[in-house]
């Protein structure tokens, strides 16, 4: 090898060195080894749609609950975490992002990276797992992180109780024709309120490396107040701030699990 190099140097034939150098430059300059890495992930995106009783809904629209109370949702925010896809071997591939959905803003999306492959189930957590919920200082996150002081957008409760997982807020009236001034304020949180939403897919989805795969999730906000096994009377129970794990907050979170559907 040394002989080979020496002979080239003696002959002032520098071309090999120049080519090696150029190759080094290219390799060093490229921070993403996209063409060499077989494990480069694809992106899985779930676009969310807000509905009320199966119809498109926007916050601020007046509607009715299941007991015919005029109602208007003004705020709906929700932490989504631990997004995971189950591959054909039965193993769950987990994303590592936390998302704060704010339905005051159009086109809320849940986006995470997954290894290429076929997947036959989807799951995600509503709320935050205990290890990142309480006793973590929001100030330790950069300001654009959804758990930061600014990024949490009013969803931070206290150091002891952690974050509000879901805010479902609005106004209602006792009867049709009355002004909507009665406050509706459901804040669900604490570790006991964490819920997991899972779907078995009839048709597997494929994640391709460096490609975007999308699906649509529907959140029917009316189902937060009535489900197959439970219902909420907003006049009797207009408020919960279950920082101590009240049963109303738990019931609401259970109802919310069934408020999600995949399209």
């Amino acid at each position, binding site marked *: 090898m040394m002989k080979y190099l020496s002979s080239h*140097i*003696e*002959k*002032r034939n*520098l071309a090999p*060195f*120049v080519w090696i*150098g*150029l190759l*080094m*430059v290219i390799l*060093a*300059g490229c*921070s993403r080894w996209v063409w060499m890495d077989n494990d480069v992930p694809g992106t899985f995106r779930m676009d969310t749609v807000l509905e009320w009783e199966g119809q498109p809904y926007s916050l*601020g629209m007046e509607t009715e609950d299941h007991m015919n109370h005029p109602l208007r949702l*003004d*705020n709906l925010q929700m932490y989504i975490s631990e997004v995971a896809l189950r591959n054909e071997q039965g193993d769950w591939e987990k994303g590592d992002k936390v998302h704060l959905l704010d339905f005051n803003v159009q086109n809320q999306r849940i986006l995470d990276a997954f290894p290429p492959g076929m997947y036959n189930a989807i799951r995600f957590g509503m709320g935050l797992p205990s290890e990142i919920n309480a006793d973590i*200082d*929001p*100030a330790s*996150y*950069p*300001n654009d992180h959804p758990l*930061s*002081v*600014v990024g*949490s*957008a*009013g969803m*931070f*409760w*206290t*150091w002891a109780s952690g974050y509000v997982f879901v805010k479902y*807020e*609005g*106004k209602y009236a006792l009867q049709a024709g009355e*002004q*909507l*001034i009665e*406050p*509706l*304020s459901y*804040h669900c949180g604490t570790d006991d309120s964490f819920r997991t939403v899972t779907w078995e897919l009839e048709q597997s989805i494929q994640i391709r490396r460096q490609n975007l795969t999308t699906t649509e999730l529907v959140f029917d906000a009316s189902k937060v107040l009535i489900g197959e096994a439970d219902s909420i009377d907003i006049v009797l*129970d*207009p*408020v*919960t*701030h*279950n*920082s*101590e794990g*009240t*049963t*109303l*907050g738990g019931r609401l979170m259970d109802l919310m699990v069934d408020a999600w559907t995949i399209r």
Partner: protein
Amino acid sequence: MDKTPYTSVKESITWLLLLTCLIGCDRCQEPNCEGPDCNPTATPYPLEIPPFFPPMDIPADNPLTEEGVHLGRLLFWEKTLSLDESLSCGSCHFPLHGFSDPAQYSTGVTGAQGTRNAMALINLGWATSYFWDGRAITLEEQILQPVAHPDEMALPWTQAISRLQADASEVNYPEQFLKAFGTSTITPELTVKAIAQFLRTLISADSKFDQWRRGETNLTDDEFAGYEMFLREGGDPETTPGGQFGGDCFHCHTEAGLQFSDYLFHNNGLDSSFVSDAGLAGVSGAVLDSGKFKTPTLRNVALSAPYMHDGRFQTLEEVIDHYNSGGVPSSTVDPFMKYTTGGLELSPVQKAQLLAFLHALTDSAFVSAPQFQDPH
């Protein structure tokens, strides 16, 4: 001098390695500043982020420099920036009042009065919008407005710049701009950038509460009880799930990041009609934003009377009484003001404890800091 082939190869490899490093290193070219207004020869300002505070996002095109902050302080206190040279920014933002105005409404150079109380200038580097209605998204954008506003300093920016450019005083503004921004040509953009740099240094983080958080002192029993009250949910748990008979202050005045503001906008139940001042709705155009105003910080709140966007309350006792009453119902009143029919029902003792805690947020060192006072 002739080079041997060996030397040439060594040089080639050295150059290639250097090139490799430069291209491969993502951070090699990380600039101290970006944009035409940056002066790479200015001295970076050593901004210290206090314990428990979040990082401060400083615009890349306006990094803090010693020269810029100094210039900003001169300009903040510069009366030349008003039509009759009688008012500076500091004329309505008194340091001893937490950089706010003790008058309900500030009076401009023409004698006209505003319609809102001058906000306290505290920890602005962490704010995400400015003015009570959030109509400015950046600090620089906010600073542009009072100088030319007819009810405030009433000086068109063209005249303001002419005055600064022609300055023959000891300050010598063209020279100050040259030091800060590398140019002696003064513009409105550079002027607000300098003031913004100064305002970002107005950091209050040494109240008794801060000292207690750092383990340097103790709160009194009343202060601590007030702090606990501050952090507890309001309402009777028998009738309000999650209720804790608390003050329910922390939702909007969150202690996250120790800023005591959620940076959001709320209708806190002051009025049932918003004809006279629509608040955020005047900016967003959304009816559902009617009566919403920015949550102010509670730092130095004991110094920054009067209170609310229109300065209607003269004392903190009145403020606490308002929240204790539950406020006025309306179609946009915040859900946090959920006890509109009965209020928080805090006892006189509890209210006094809450008040004691709010006084523990006073940072005397901040309001009297020499580096923030009028240098002229």
